[in-house]
């Protein structure tokens, strides 16, 4: 499960900050393609699979996974349903974290009996995923729920593990991981 992207990312630090490039554009693309293949392999036929991106960082990744899977499977097959889920009001640390009022939940199908694949950019404490499992319940009873993330940075506080990982990245709690379609960076958290 723990593959590296296989490339040699630029780890030089920039002059203005302690920003470290962990994955580049090509690495992110390769990871998405690999995860897409793994999803197809593990869910033979993709019957009943629904891909749901977690607001906000997981949404673009879910969209990319769906388009990549469609491309691999052939455009003549029906597309996998794609949804987004905002969990801010389901969190157990609601007093500690800001909410993002612009994020919306949009689940296009009844989830009862479906195989839900939750997608997020970074897996950290696991509390977002726990909140997402609660929120999902309001849209039906999936037959299974899987989890795909671009970065698993460790420090789990709950018994949650990902099924698909772009890259395992050991981090300190005081570090900040940023994921975008262009790449992944790691930096020391700025105080305040």
């Amino acid at each position, binding site marked *: 499960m723990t593959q590296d992207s296989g490339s040699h990312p630029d780890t030089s630090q920039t002059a203005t900050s302690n920003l470290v490039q962990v994955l580049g554009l090509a690495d992110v693309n390769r990871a998405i393609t690999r995860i897409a293949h793994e999803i197809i392999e593990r869910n033979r036929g993709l019957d009943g699979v629904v891909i749901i991106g977690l607001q906000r960082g997981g949404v673009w990744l879910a969209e990319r996974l769906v388009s990549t899977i469609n491309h691999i499977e052939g455009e003549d097959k029906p597309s996998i349903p794609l949804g987004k889920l905002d969990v801010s*009001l*389901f969190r157990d640390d609601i*007093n500690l974290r*800001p909410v993002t009022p*612009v994020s919306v939940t949009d689940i296009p199908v009844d989830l009862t009996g479906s195989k839900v694949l939750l997608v997020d950019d970074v897996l950290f404490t696991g509390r977002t995923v726990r909140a997402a499992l609660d*929120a999902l319940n309001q849209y039906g009873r999936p037959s299974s729920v899987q989890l795909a993330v671009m970065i698993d940075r460790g420090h789990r506080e709950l018994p949650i593990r990902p099924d698909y990982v772009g890259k395992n990245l050991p981090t300190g709690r005081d570090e900040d991981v940023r994921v975008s379609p262009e790449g992944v960076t790691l930096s020391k958290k700025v105080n305040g």
Partner: protein
Amino acid sequence: MKHLRSIPELGVDGIVRILGLANHMAEVNRRPVPKVPALNGRTIVSLFFEDSTRTRISFETAAKRLSADTMTFSVSTSSVNKGESLKDTIETVSAMGVAAFVVRHKTSGIPWQLSEWTDASIINAGDGWHQHPTQALLDSFTIMSALGRSPSSDCLKGLTIGIVGDIRHSRVARSDIQAFTALGAKVVLVAPRTLLPPEVEGWPVTTSSSLDEVIGEVDVLYMLRMQRERMNEALVPNLGEYSARYGLDERRSKMLSEHALLMHPGPMNRGVEMLIDPASMPNNMITQQVANGVSVRMAVLFDVLGGSETGAGVVS
């Protein structure tokens, strides 16, 4: 934000923050299960010393959709003594572990008084002729949404909003004027001189005593409830004359511009200020105001109780 007591206290940044949160809550209300665990374990007490249907039920619906526990404490105006007994009531109920009081009282300023007697948050659901901040927020939200605009400090810019009726005795009008003008709208008050308050000179509004002169120019026509008891005070000669000059009838409804929104805070006096069936108007927002009230009050409760010390910490 610790309390919501008035629009000026909330400020324009606070108004914009609540409008953004309300957008999010409106989306929650469209979900198949419109309920989230955000305020699980918090207790909210409605303390209504004045009659109310929609505001009280709207607040309770909002609290329940955020999974808070609600209790209602209804007191008829006549049975309540001010001063010590009100203090005792608040202290007693607070001692049970209450996170917030939603208060309506006939005396202006009561929400400020109560917040000296309890550590709980105070949300003003109407105090005398003074303030009704959640009404102003839901009215602003309704206009903003109807125009397809996003929350910002100038989201009502370019609009002329006509508020018609008994401005003098209306807490809705006072809060609305403050919210609408803070968001960039122009407000014109339409009422007989006797129903305008003396302090109107200092307000950022224009006034007119003729609805016919103004009605064609407004983007929003906001009709206030004409309270029948005002007739006894001889502020208006009789209801018939008030209706003839300030009521919305068939003839005036045709003078409204096509895009103009029709609003009313309820409860409506059919046959007094409303002489037509508002449902026949294409841009009738009255039901939408009630629906939006739940989303806006969810936003207020979440901002007061769900956030950190400095408010809900909204990220846009």
